């Protein structure tokens, strides 16, 4: 005669065994996957390594100079093209008011002042370092470039980058 406790015990033992099997298979499967991923990573790193060497090879200054001469409208940077912030002229002010207008009555003056275009603060500027040897042919000191304000914040970009991407295992 089987007592209920014994039955319960047997059932428990059976389910524990089953569970153990499942977990162990799962672990083996995960191990396999991990191994595969690791191999894939090593393979990718090896290709990156080769590509880095190739990138360096393709970046030989002599080769770049030859290509730039052939395809680009660039000439070597002249000393006069390098300027400092201090040497830049100030931004011209909006048209100043005439003497007559100053004597005009306060109301018109106020209206006129309100009608003036509102000045925005200067957009952030970035000093482009004279890292490359050449600058474009028009003979302007084209070394300051205005950066348009980014439409996306740094947070957006980071979120995009950090988003987990599906990994394929071969």
């Amino acid at each position, binding site marked *: 005669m089987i007592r209920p406790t014994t039955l319960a015990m047997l059932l428990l033992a059976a389910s524990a065994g089953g569970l153990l099997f499942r977990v162990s298979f799962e672990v083996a499967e995960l191990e396999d996957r*991990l191994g595969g991923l*690791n191999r894939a*990573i*090593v393979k990718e*790193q*090896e290709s990156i*390594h*080769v590509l*880095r*060497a*190739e*990138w*360096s*090879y393709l*970046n*030989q*200054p*002599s080769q770049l*100079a030859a290509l730039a001469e052939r395809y680009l409208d660039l000439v*070597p*940077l002249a*000393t006069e093209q*390098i300027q*400092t912030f201090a040497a830049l002229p100030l931004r011209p002010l909006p048209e100043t008011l005439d003497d007559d207008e100053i004597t005009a009555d306060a109301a018109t003056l106020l209206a006129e002042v309100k009608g003036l275009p509102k000045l925005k603060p200067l957009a952030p500027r970035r000093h482009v370092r*004279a*890292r490359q*040897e050449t600058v474009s042919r028009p003979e302007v000191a084209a070394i300051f470039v205005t950066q348009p304000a980014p439409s996306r914040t740094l947070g957006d970009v980071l979120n995009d980058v950090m988003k987990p991407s599906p990994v394929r295992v071969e």
Partner: protein
Amino acid sequence: MVAQDDERQATLERARTRLLIGGAVFTACFLAVGLRLADLGLLRQEQDVRALQSREVVGQIKTQRADIVDRQGELLATNLVTASLFANPRRVPDPAAAALKLASVLPEFSAAELTAKLSADRAFVWLKRNLTPRQQFEINRLGIPGLDFEREEQRVYPHGALTAHVVGFTGIDNEGLVGIEKSFDATLAGGGEALQLSLDLRVQYILRKELSEQIERFSAIGGGGLVIDADTGEIVAMVSLPDFDPNSANEADDDARFNRISLGVYELGSVFKIFNHAMALDSGITSMKGGYDASKPIRVARFTINDFHGENRWLSVPEIFMYSSNVGSAKMALHAGGEMQRDFLSDLGFLERTSVELPEQGKPIYPAPWREISTMTISYGHGIAVSPMHLASATAAMVNGGLLHSPTLIKRSPSDPVLGKRVISRDTSDSMRRLMRLVVENENGTGGNAAAPGYVVGGKTGTAEKQVDGRYKTKALVSSFVGVFPSQAPRYVVVVMLDEPKGIKESYGYATAGWTAAPVVSRVISQAAPLLGVAPVDEDAPEIQRALALSLYSRVRTVAAN
């Protein structure tokens, strides 16, 4: 009956005790397992996660030899995985047929050669090291039994000849043979982090391009150039021409492999007047206002010391430097004496090999004993042979405020303290800057062609006749120029040396340093200065003029002193 009952009773009693003991043992076992389970499952979670994470973490792949990169991180040398082909000739069934097939893939071998290799009575024979991936694929496709591949690593230099003399190269088994590859062989062989050099590839390219163009223009047999940070001794560019492709170094001849910058020692001529003047000014035997009679050549025994740009009169100290007067310099050196000269040059490191990290180092040649005639000739750079590397590091000390730094090819980290040995005073260094600026700026100076507008170049020319078999050859010159910029607060020293340039029409037949080496310095500085973060200035600005003003103290009224 009673006895039987007793016996039964005893048996039952015994059975029960056994059961009890057995049960207790099992209970203890299960309890232990249960406790351990609870321990692992409930209490140890944190440690487990950590243990898992530390397991089988894939790091950066490790090559057998570390990379070499420039100061910007540009790759100069790396190891690539390749396959090498070997055979077990005993397992190749038909060597002749196999050889024929192989020869179609490896055109550098003839079928006969391969047949000989494949029919050898050995179990292992190399056929070709470092196959290209395409060759490996083709050979695999041939399906010849008895052939196999071995995974190997090959040293690759993506920039080829550009840094050949600095980086050097390795042998077939990736052991460093020359250059940085040799001097850092032990470090590199361990794999690991890349070795970062102080070289700037862009400046290196500019220097090599300008130097090789000038060598061609003046039909020189070779040349060398060096750009060194005056405040730290870091070598930013170093070129010796002719050079070679380190990827096929065994095809290069000895001349191409010869490092003219660190291994070659030359009598560098008048550039030594920098040190002669610095010695005289620093020791106080004379001052900028002093001078020496250079009206007549000096005759000692069978030698005559002449001036190339002869003024034939009394010359002030700045004039001796500007006109590069040998007679004036020799008299100045005699005034100081041989012992002081020897000690001073020794302090500047001119009598020993430099401590740069290259195995190719030339030992300076200097007279022993140090006679009076040597003292005179050494004052203008004859009778002592040093490498251009010596010249660059000593010149840096002359203009940077008086501190000598060992030249180095390894990038200095900004946190490292800059240690230097004081060799001259700050005041003397200031005078030397003015003197060197004079040579380039003054219309009578010999170095006008080194000027690079905006970068306030100063320097000194040096043209020396080469000694061949113990005699000086008038037609074989070593023309060199050592330049500093910007003179008011020198950041870099540039040395350019041309080996046996020949005069051309554009230089009115001259092959002297002012015509050959100085223009290279000008072109290198105007291109490299923006890359090195040196901003151009207005050379006529009052503060710059003031920093470099110098009175000639000339005793001739017609010479315009500025």
